[in-house]
């Protein structure tokens, strides 16, 4: 039978990372993926990633996907696409459907990196055409160039719901509401804020009563729920929509592991049924490893590190590296993973209500309830200062592991310090040169350059802008507040694009000076 040192199932972030590490250590590696394109979910992630440099922060997901593919190619990994693994049989036999035949392979080691599938929720009408997963919507938009709908309601305020809502807007869909049964926004505040400021209303403690329509979705009714998730009569709200997107979590696709006889557990913290494995992916069956979402739902950055861990462990298992070398690799990777698993959204904090930041500042309640920071709350955060002349205003208010902003400013205006989850501060006495790099490099689109008083009663605000067409200089419109509501008239004074900004455009608008700390988005009139 055809045999490889290592067979990896799934060419997503964790599978490719595992394959690269193993191949670099000398293993003969093949990766099978059922899709026609490699990269897993990375190729539909058009937003910039969080983290630090080692986590490839501020790089867009699909670019990371391409980088991984190039590295895999260089390392001699064989990536086979349109290759559906139909079974993981006994004795680590992997049976793959390739075109019109099935091929049997044996792996001395097997890494399962099959990722996750979207969860569904039920409500009357949930089976109507037009009710789709948010991930499906993302695939339609970003991989196939198909608009999922025109008027969309998003259910779910986790990062997937927030990111996809923003992308729907970028595609020209109207997101009429972002709804979540939970009382607080689940995803990063900066993701929520960038959606809210475009005018999407948030309905927390709400969920779908019913999807309406005969042949397909024509409308939806939501209502408020009480603390035991029961509908409160009289709180119903109706929207005309053609699409309902569900972003209600993911479940590991762990079936192959169960089939192979790996010991499994049902672990709600990991998103469902997962193999019992040690922290480097070794399952109960020697030589079968896991990495990425299939072993517990997290995100792409940690999946890549888990993949690298599993690749190294497999290399040691097969004698390609010594125990000492493995330990060294794992120590480094442990640190990288710890770096990501810090802050308010760390796995250990899941389900906990956090009221204060590490700095002791009260968390914005409006951000959690409405998706935006209230005007009266914003100035208590250390990135928001008032100064004469152009200066950065950093509306980053939660402790998340991310620091590209401090590297972006060559003038040293922004500092996060040693702890990657600390809130960024504007360094005293630093001088901003209005280069805009911080605005473009902030993955959360939370940095603005503000000149509060131009001397003529106006202020200038430079904001990150990722919508097309780009407004030209002189375009008249409105400044929108953090809540997405019109606060003032505004005119575009500049629109900067540059390779260094990586497709984030810098829009400078002029507003009456009393709105310098209020207007955060621009809408053409």
């Amino acid at each position, binding site marked *: 039978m055809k045999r490889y040192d290592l067979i990896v199932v799934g060419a997503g972030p964790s599978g490719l990372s595992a394959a690269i590490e193993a191949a670099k250590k000398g293993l003969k590696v093949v990766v099978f993926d059922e899709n026609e394109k490699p990269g897993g979910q990375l190729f539909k992630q058009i937003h910039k990633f969080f983290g630090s440099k080692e986590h490839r922060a501020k790089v867009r997901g699909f670019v990371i996907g391409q980088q991984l593919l190039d590295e895999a190619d260089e390392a001699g990994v064989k990536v086979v696409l349109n290759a559906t693994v139909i079974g993981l049989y006994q004795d680590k036999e992997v049976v793959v*459907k390739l075109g*019109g*035949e099935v091929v049997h392979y044996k792996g001395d080691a097997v890494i399962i990196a099959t990722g996750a599938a979207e969860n569904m929720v039920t409500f009357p009408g949930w089976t109507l055409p037009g009710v789709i997963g948010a991930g499906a919507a993302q695939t339609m938009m970003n991989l196939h160039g198909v608009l999922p709908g025109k008027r969309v309601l998003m259910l779910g305020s986790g990062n997937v719901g927030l990111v996809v809502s923003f992308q729907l807007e970028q595609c020209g869909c109207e997101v009429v509401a972002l709804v979540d049964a939970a009382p607080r926004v689940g995803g990063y505040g900066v993701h929520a804020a960038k959606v809210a400021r475009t005018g999407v209303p948030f309905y927390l403690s709400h969920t779908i009563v019913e999807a309406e329509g005969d042949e397909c979705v024509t409308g939806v009714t939501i209502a408020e729920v009480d603390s035991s998730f029961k509908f409160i009569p009289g709180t119903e709200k109706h929207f005309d929509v053609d699409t309902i997107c569900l972003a209600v979590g993911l479940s590991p696709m762990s*079936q192959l592991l*169960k089939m192979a006889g790996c010991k499994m557990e049902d672990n709600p913290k990991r998103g469902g049924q997962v193999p019992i494995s040690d922290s480097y992916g070794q399952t109960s069956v020697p030589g079968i490893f896991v990495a990425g979402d299939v072993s517990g739902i997290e995100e792409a950055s940690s999946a890549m590190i888990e993949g690298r861990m599993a690749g190294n462990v497999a290399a040691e298992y097969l004698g390609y590296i010594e125990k000492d070398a493995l330990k060294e690799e794992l120590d480094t990777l442990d640190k990288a993973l710890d770096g990501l698993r810090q802050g308010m959204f760390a796995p250990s904090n899941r389900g906990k209500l956090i009221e204060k930041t590490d700095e002791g500042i009260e968390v914005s309640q409006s951000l959690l309830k409405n998706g935006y920071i209230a005007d009266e709350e914003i100035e208590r955060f250390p990135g928001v200062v008032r100064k004469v002349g152009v200066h950065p205003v950093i509306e980053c208010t939660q402790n998340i592991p991310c620091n590209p902003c401090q590297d972006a400013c060559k003038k040293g205006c922004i500092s996060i310090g040693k702890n990657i989850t600390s809130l960024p501060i504007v360094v005293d006495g630093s001088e901003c040169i209005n280069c805009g790099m911080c605005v473009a490099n902030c993955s959360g689109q939370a940095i603005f350059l503000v000149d509060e008083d131009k001397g003529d009663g106006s202020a200038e605000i430079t904001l990150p802008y990722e919508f097309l067409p780009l407004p030209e200089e002189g375009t008249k419109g409105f400044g929108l507040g953090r809540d997405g509501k019109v606060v003032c008239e505004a005119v575009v004074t500049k629109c900067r694009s540059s390779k260094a900004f990586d497709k984030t455009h810098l829009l400078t608008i002029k507003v009456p000076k009393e709105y310098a700390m209020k207007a955060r988005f621009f809408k053409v009139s």
Partner: protein
Amino acid sequence: MNSVNDRTRDIGPFVPGPDDDMLICRCEEITKGEIRQAVHDGMWTLTEIRRYLRTGMGLCQGQTCSKLVKGIVARELGVSPAELEPATSRVPMRPIEMRVFANEADSNKEGE
């Protein structure tokens, strides 16, 4: 896991619900009411539910509904969903034409 499960334990009567006619397993068109009734007929494990009603036995093999069914059964039994073991996973992971499954590549041939 093999834990003692006395099927005479009282789980209360079947109470019809307003959303009993809602489809849960789309492939096999099984409703919430049918699932709830099956629990009261004694089908206390997800495997039994699946064998009795065909939930999760269609083209998607439970990818969409298995978590939903689990939630419904758990609620009916008054246990946490995590206590219910998911049904077994079977080859093939994706539906495969008989002619393709039958067509095994020569395992001695070099190539892929």
